[in-house]
């Protein structure tokens, strides 16, 4: 068998997924032994035209990071889908919308206005906003169209596998790369590089009884480093989040924010957490329950921190 051809691309992303791939450290040399990289903007100098020149299906595996925020992101999703045998939605943004997906709490106009007109550090007296086409003396320049909604990769193209994480944990990336190299691919549509149990399952904190009388913000409490954060009244998405990351956040005294997405069989991670809350709030009356729950600041932005575009809600209605 010849060497595998691998591509890695970022759409609306931060590059953290690319760095996570490099965080497999010297094993990247092993990857280079079994695979040729044919497109990877953060690390190599292939251009769009190079990819367009490849025959369809030329790339064995594309790891696609980032959400679909604009028409260029969608163009690359379609281009790489066509050129790739296997397309992986790699990381929370590509799989569920991720942090850029928080923009679905806002409107397109609101974002453009804030960024280009109202931002205190922006000087734009003529009120210029990005245009998809602009005439300059030498010719025409183009920019992508900024969509109203952030979408997931699977919203715009057929996706073979989903790999969650913000970013995916390097040991999981290595495991997935080994599976790719072996050729024994899982069934289409599988979530790869993650556990099928919740984050709590791999979190070392001691869990006893989940009965919460009060929710706290960080400045109101010094958490016990041994005990379950949620039991201490700190909003932690662990019970409704897929494990596999190694519980890096909760081990560092930080609550889980859900970047590995929902567990199998759960459609909406945020709604599932609302259900979790309903079962742990220790209230005798509806009023007391409301008071306890009311202490949670920004519930939507917290429960849908990484997954609003991929959720049932998809976006805020009156943004």
């Amino acid at each position, binding site marked *: 068998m010849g060497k595998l051809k691998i591509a890695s691309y*970022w759409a*609306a*992303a*931060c*590059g*953290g*997924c*690319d*760095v996570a791939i490099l965080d497999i450290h010297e094993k990247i040399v092993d990857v280079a032994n079994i695979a040729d990289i044919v497109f990877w*903007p*953060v*690390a*190599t*100098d*292939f*251009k*769009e035209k190079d990819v367009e020149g490849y025959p369809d299906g030329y790339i064995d595996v594309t790891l696609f990071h980032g959400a679909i*925020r*604009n028409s*260029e992101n969608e163009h690359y999703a379609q281009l790489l889908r066509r050129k790739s045998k296997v397309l992986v939605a790699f990381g929370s943004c590509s799989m569920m919308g*991720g*942090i*850029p997906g*928080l*923009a679905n*709490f*806002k409107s397109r106009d*609101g*974002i*453009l206005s*804030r*960024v280009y007109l109202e*931002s205190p550090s922006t000087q734009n007296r003529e009120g210029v906003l*990005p245009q998809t086409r602009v005439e*300059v*003396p*030498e*010719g025409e*320049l183009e*920019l*992508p169209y*900024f969509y109203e909604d952030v979408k997931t990769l699977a919203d715009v193209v057929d996706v073979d596998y989903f790999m969650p994480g*913000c*970013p995916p944990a390097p040991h999981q990336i290595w495991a997935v790369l080994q599976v790719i190299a072996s050729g024994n691919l899982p069934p289409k549509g599988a979530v790869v590089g993650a556990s099928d149990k919740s984050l709590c399952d791999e979190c070392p904190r001691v869990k006893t009884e989940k009965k919460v009388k009060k929710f706290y*913000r*960080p*400045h109101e409490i010094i958490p016990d480093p041994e005990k379950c954060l949620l039991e201490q009244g700190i909003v932690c998405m662990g019970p409704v989040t897929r494990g596999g990351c190694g519980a890096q956040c909760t081990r560092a005294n*930080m609550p889980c*924010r859900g970047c590995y997405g929902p567990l199998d069989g759960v459609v909406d991670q945020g709604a599932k957490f609302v259900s979790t809350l309903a079962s742990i709030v220790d209230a005798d009356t509806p009023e007391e329950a409301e008071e306890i729950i009311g202490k949670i*600041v*920004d519930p939507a*932005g*917290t429960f849908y*921190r990484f997954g609003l575009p991929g959720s049932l809600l998809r976006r805020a209605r009156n943004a």
Partner: protein
Amino acid sequence: MRRITIDPITRLEGHGKINIFLDDTGAVKNVYFQVPELRGFEKFVEGRPAEEVPQIVSRICGV
């Protein structure tokens, strides 16, 4: 007028595109640098608790 397009700009975080226009003698007439990427952190951190913002804006650039 000849145009050289460099797209995407590579080996940096983010998206960039450069158009170089050359005149008839092959000298550079003008250069346009474009950033086709926008996510809108400035807007979507509004409404988020202050203590959550460091974890959100750390995703501006992960390189």
